């Protein structure tokens, strides 16, 4: 038998430890890869395909996944190396040299971590493929395409190395520097009392004595416990915030769709280029069972940067009372200031037409009067009727007539609107780029888009939060797995001194809940205020905070149940 064979045997005998190490690394890397493949995907990050308000949601969890990788890998490396201290202590006492030990550890680590990385990249690729598949075929955002590119692989591998290499050098190095006598006693000697522990002991000594075994266990693992708790805290609070934001944001999408569409259909006739017979439109709509209740027509002029509407007509049809004198105009910003977006509202101060004539601003107002349409310019000015007539004669301006329709049932108008679109493109035969310009816009389409965006956002967040919660549960799983040996011994000795099985089980449940639930509760509590303020931007502070709290409580409940079940399983494994 050679040393190589012995190493191999020990590797196989320690398989469960390697397995934990392997899967922790695999999971952390796959998680990050998944996010990397999304934020490096060009179609996803393209503002024309995916609303930046939605796609920007990916950065926050990506950073979190990167942090997870950077914290979790060294942690798992530490646990893995620490678990083998005693073994190395024995081998050193028999005369294994430190250099041999280092190379042995190095080979093992490289083997396990390289395999884990390869598996992680494969699993991450599959996961991101599923993600894009669902976005494309399930939600119907066809512009989003899954693609293989080298970049996310490179980023993931780089981060993986950055996280692992120093940790390995540090922890493997610590074994090499340690005294043999210390290594031989490694598991027992790592106990240290923290300030918190001593304070707890003093403040509630009765309580502490009753749960001595559990607390001493936690004290022994306080380092790992602390790092793990911080991670869990961050994971939970981020999940709560994301959930609350996604709920209010997708509700806001629907609300905005309605508030920005006071009318059910809009189109614009334009000079000679886009002619539409209103009677035909009404006829087509009627064919599809859409009853038109009201039609508003207002002439307007536009150039590249603004529209001008005659104020009298606007007052008449939209029930306003704007006063605009000759030689003046009013800036009308058609925004909902409560919608959560940033709005650019620099008023125009003066305009010049016919070469030398000037109009001055008489102020501005913020109010949504009508739906927007591609034919309109970004800004809207209201001018007096006499000025409007003069503007119409200026060759620099295009003259058009805007038509707003009100139906009795906008929800059923989709087919009718499609038919109107078809009719318009047939009658005008405009080139495709022009046609987009004179497109009909409608409430029902806007609403459907908002629904789609909302669903997409919720799916995206569910995907992210799902991954993060999986990270949380795996963290628990690996933690418990890594402690199994020590637990076995503790339980065995507890039972020998006459502690009943039920008491042991209760203790285990208590211990597991004590350390795993606390960060969840704290995460939920501490994310309440951020939730409130973030959602206040959509004027839904309380709803958002409520949704977050519900999620947090749900997560804590799920954890209580899972931990109870897990403790039972752990206990059974020990008895067997």
């Amino acid at each position, binding site marked *: 038998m050679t*040393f190589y064979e012995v190493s191999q045997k020990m590797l196989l005998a320690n398989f469960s430890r390697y397995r934990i190490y392997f899967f922790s690394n695999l999971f952390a890397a796959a998680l990050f890869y998944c996010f990397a493949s999304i934020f490096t995907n060009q179609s996803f990050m393209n503002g024309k395909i995916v609303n930046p308000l939605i796609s920007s949601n990916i950065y926050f969890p990506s950073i979190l996944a990167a942090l997870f990788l950077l914290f979790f890998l060294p942690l798992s490396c530490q646990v893995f190396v620490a678990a083998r201290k005693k073994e190395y202590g024995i081998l050193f006492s*028999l005369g294994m040299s430190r250099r041999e030990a280092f190379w042995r550890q190095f080979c093992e680590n490289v083997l396990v971590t390289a395999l884990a990385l390869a598996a992680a990249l494969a699993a991450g690729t599959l996961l991101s493929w599923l993600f894009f598949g669902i976005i494309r075929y399930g939600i119907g955002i066809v512009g989003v395409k899954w693609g293989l590119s080298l970049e996310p692989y490179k980023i993931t591998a780089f981060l993986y190395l950055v996280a692992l290499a120093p940790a390995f050098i540090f922890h493997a190095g610590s074994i090499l520097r340690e*005294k*043999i006598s210390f290594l031989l006693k490694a598991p027992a000697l790592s106990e240290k009392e923290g300030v918190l522990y001593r304070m707890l002991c003093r403040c509630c000594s009765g309580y502490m004595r009753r749960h001595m075994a559990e607390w001493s266990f936690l004290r022994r693992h306080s380092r790992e416990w602390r790092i793990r708790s911080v991670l869990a805290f961050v994971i939970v609070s981020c999940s709560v915030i994301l959930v609350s934001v996604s709920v209010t944001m997708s509700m806001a999408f629907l609300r905005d769709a309605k508030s920005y569409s006071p009318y059910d259909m809009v189109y614009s006739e334009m000079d000679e280029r886009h002619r539409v017979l209103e009677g035909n439109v009404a006829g087509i709509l009627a064919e599809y069972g859409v009853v038109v209740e009201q039609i508003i027509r207002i002439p307007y002029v536009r150039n590249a940067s603004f529209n001008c509407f005659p104020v009298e007509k606007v007052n008449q049809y939209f029930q306003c009372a704007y006063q605009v004198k000759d030689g003046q105009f009013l800036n009308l910003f058609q925004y909902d200031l409560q919608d959560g977006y940033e709005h650019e509202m620099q008023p125009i101060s003066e305009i010049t037409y016919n070469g030398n004539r000037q109009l001055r601003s008489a102020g501005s107002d913020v109010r949504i009067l009508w739906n927007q349409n591609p034919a309109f310019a970004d800004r809207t000015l209201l001018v007096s009727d006499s000025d409007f007539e003069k503007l119409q004669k200026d060759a620099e301006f295009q003259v058009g007539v805007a038509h707003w329709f009100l139906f009795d049932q906008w929800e059923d108008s989709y087919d009718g609107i499609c038919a109107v679109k078809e009719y318009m493109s047939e009658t005008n035969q405009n080139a495709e780029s022009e046609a987009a310009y004179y497109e009909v816009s409608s409430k029902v389409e806007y609403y459907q888009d908002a629904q789609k965006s909302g669903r997409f956002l919720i799916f995206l967040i569910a995907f992210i939060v799902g991954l993060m919660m999986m990270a949380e549960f795996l963290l628990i799983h690996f933690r418990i797995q890594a402690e199994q040996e020590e637990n076995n011994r503790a339980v065995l000795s507890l039972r020998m001194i006459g502690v009943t099985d039920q008491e042991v089980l209760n203790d285990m449940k208590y211990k597991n809940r004590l350390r795993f639930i606390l960060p969840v509760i704290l995460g939920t509590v501490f994310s309440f205020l951020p939730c409130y303020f973030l959602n206040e931007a959509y004027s839904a502070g309380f709803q958002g905070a409520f949704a977050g709290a519900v999620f947090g409580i749900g997560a804590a409940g799920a954890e209580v149940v899972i931990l109870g079940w897990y403790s039972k399983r752990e206990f059974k494994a020990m008895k067997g």
Partner: protein
Amino acid sequence: MLALHASNISKSYKSSGQTIEVLRHVDLQIASGEMVAIMGPSGSGKTTLLHVLAGVDVPDSGTVELGGEDFSGLTEEEKAFFRRTHIGMVFQDFQLLESLTVKENILLPLILNQKDVYWQDKALKKVMEALELAEFADKRIAELSGGQKQRVAIGRALIHEPGIVFGDEPTGSLDLKTTRDVMCCMVQMNRKFGSSFLLVTHDAYAASYCDRALLLQDGKLKSEVRKQESNASFREDILNMWCCLGGEADDFL
């Protein structure tokens, strides 16, 4: 084969703010091929002394010379090679590798010394027979009794025929007959290869196989008895030494 010369060894532990002086300026000399027993009350620092002498632990002060070479002055790398060729060690708590079988545990020193299979088999057979372990060869450590584990630990310490063997209560878990077998095995090795032995023991019977017995108390080597003519009178001397400290003669039976 190896002489040990330790001088002025001190060792203290710090725990929860207190410093415990375990060894205070201990001097110890073992001639090449000598068998020495160390006795002493529980907690007197016997294990600590043994660990320091074998280079498993580092003393606060003092030097250890093994075979005329300053062992404490060697680098870690040199210590490791020295240990694998010249030192055999039986730990009080055995320190066996749970992931390996009995056979593999015993073979480890030979494996580290890169001895080929022929030598391994030959040495293994001898040790297994002497320690009556043959039937457990392929068992896992967890399946053994305390005494069986102890014999595995002894086997591992002897298989490479080291120059000096440190045994921390090597017969503590053995019955009288097995104790005798194990001690005979050690004496045989001592006669045949001239290996030196330093054994910590509470057992006057086991100690009587040695050439000399020392008493460690309050961090110092207090008294010493030598084997003169017969085993019986040596045992008497050891018992007397023990009784002086307030022990009962019956404790050894």
